[in-house]
């Protein structure tokens, strides 16, 4: 799905040219022919390991455009599911990084095993595991069933120990350190100038997280830290992701305590017709800032639906990251950028 045309001098990378678009389905064009609610299903298929945050970014843009209020309980459910998704997505990123380091299959399966538990929770929430379509403009699809809460509690209790285990395998592993420390360094100035967001930006030492900078839903009512890296190398990018998983668990714990009873969806028209105008809504997805820019002409379908996908824009720095490194480093540095092709190609 992704091709990297690389020019080598012996073993050293001189130049890279990413070739992509193999998964281009024209999501932005398709959205122009669907109603505002139907587009939710298209967003699942962007970053397909992180459908919840895609949903959230899109419905936030619609709510901003149409001025729809969201009930409190729905906000908490959104945050809980998004943070679960963040853990699942970071598990995949970490698992595949190890895979690319040559730790073939086994560590990846450890990550997939834990991700599976999260997907089971999603199945309880909405019946789907990957393409969830859980959120709607104005709330969420349905309330969590009774047995969701004990299952969530169990996961939140078990997860820290699992993350410990995972870290025990990687964080001070001599091979991992030798191959990732000081490899593929990205500076903060470069990252900001090239519109890099998410863990890639935070690894360079910039404390920027939309959940803090522009708190949406209930992120301003929970306590959490924004982990940052020291120098922006491959190791920092890994470390930021692992620490973010812990913070996500902290957020979920607090949300479970705070969640009120009540409606989960405000009443909206069957066909949402936002007033003529435009709106940009964004969230901090596991990959970075995922934004939707919607233009309405007053009709039942978006006139224009632009997706600002973090994976795509983070690829801008690929050449700067890879040039000058050896062939063996190339695959690890590339793996640490954590791109998802569904989102790159849209």
């Amino acid at each position: 799905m992704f091709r990297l045309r690389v020019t080598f001098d012996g073993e050293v990378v001189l130049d890279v040219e990413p070739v992509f678009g193999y998964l281009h389905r024209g999501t932005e064009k398709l959205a122009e022919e669907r109603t505002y609610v139907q587009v939710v299903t298209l967003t699942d298929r962007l970053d397909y390991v992180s459908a919840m945050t895609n949903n959230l970014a899109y419905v936030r843009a619609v709510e901003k455009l149409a001025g729809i209020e969201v009930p409190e309980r729905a906000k908490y459910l959104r945050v809980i599911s998004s943070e679960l998704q963040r853990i699942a997505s970071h598990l995949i990123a970490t698992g595949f990084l190890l895979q690319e380091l040559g730790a073939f299959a086994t560590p990846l399966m450890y990550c997939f095993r834990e991700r599976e538990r999260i997907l089971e929770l999603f199945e309880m929430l909405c019946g789907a595991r990957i393409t969830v379509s859980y959120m709607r403009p104005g709330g969420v699809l349905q309330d969590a069933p009774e047995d969701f809460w004990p299952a969530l509690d169990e996961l939140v209790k078990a997860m820290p120990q699992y993350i410990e285990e995972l870290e025990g395998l990687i964080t001070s592993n001599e091979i991992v350190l030798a191959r990732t420390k000081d490899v593929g360094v990205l500076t903060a100035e470069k990252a900001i100038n090239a519109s890099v967001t998410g863990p890639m930006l935070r690894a360079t030492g910039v404390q920027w997280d939309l959940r803090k900078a522009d708190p949406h839903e209930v992120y301003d009512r929970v306590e959490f830290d924004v982990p940052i890296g020291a120098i922006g190398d491959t190791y920092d990018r890994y470390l930021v992701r692992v620490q973010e998983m812990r913070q996500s668990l902290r957020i979920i714990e607090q949300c479970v305590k705070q969640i009120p009873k009540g409606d989960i969806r405000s009443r909206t028209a069957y066909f949402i017709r936002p007033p003529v105008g435009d709106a940009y809504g964004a969230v901090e997805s596991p990959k970075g800032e995922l934004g939707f820019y919607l233009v309405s002409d007053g009709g039942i379908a978006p006139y224009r639906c632009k997706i600002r996908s973090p994976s795509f824009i983070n690829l801008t720095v690929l050449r700067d990251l890879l040039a000058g490194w050896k062939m063996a480093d190339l695959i690890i540095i590339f793996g640490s950028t954590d791109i998802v092709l569904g989102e790159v190609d849209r």
Partner: protein
Amino acid sequence: MAKALAGTDVARRINETFSGVALESNKTDVWVAPDDLHRAAKFLHDDKELDCAMLLAITAVDYVERFELVYHLRSMRKNHTVVIKTRLSGREEPAISSVTDIWQGADLQEREVWDLMGIRFEGHPNMKRVLLWEGFPGHPLRRDFVR
């Protein structure tokens, strides 16, 4: 909480330095002429108060009688966003100057706009299609595209 700077304020600041560059403004957006876009973008990037260090997104919207380019900018130090827009006329192959020399982040995004909307960016180091293949007929995100 991030603040969206009022378009009227931003327009006033631009016009203080380059008089007449900001054509129109409202509560959220500023419009500039396509020829002035690069100048305005450079000013927004360099100015200490506005400090738009990050280019969030470049969007092209096809309104049939014109194209509109929307630049979402962000200052992380001041935690605010700025939206500037420009209108392009002509459907054949409208062109505008690239902002890749100001923000590297424009690189892939401008190529995407060229690929899907058919707006050429002059001064871009590598103005090629990015998602579709070279030789693809037309630009699919245009409203009048028929396959």
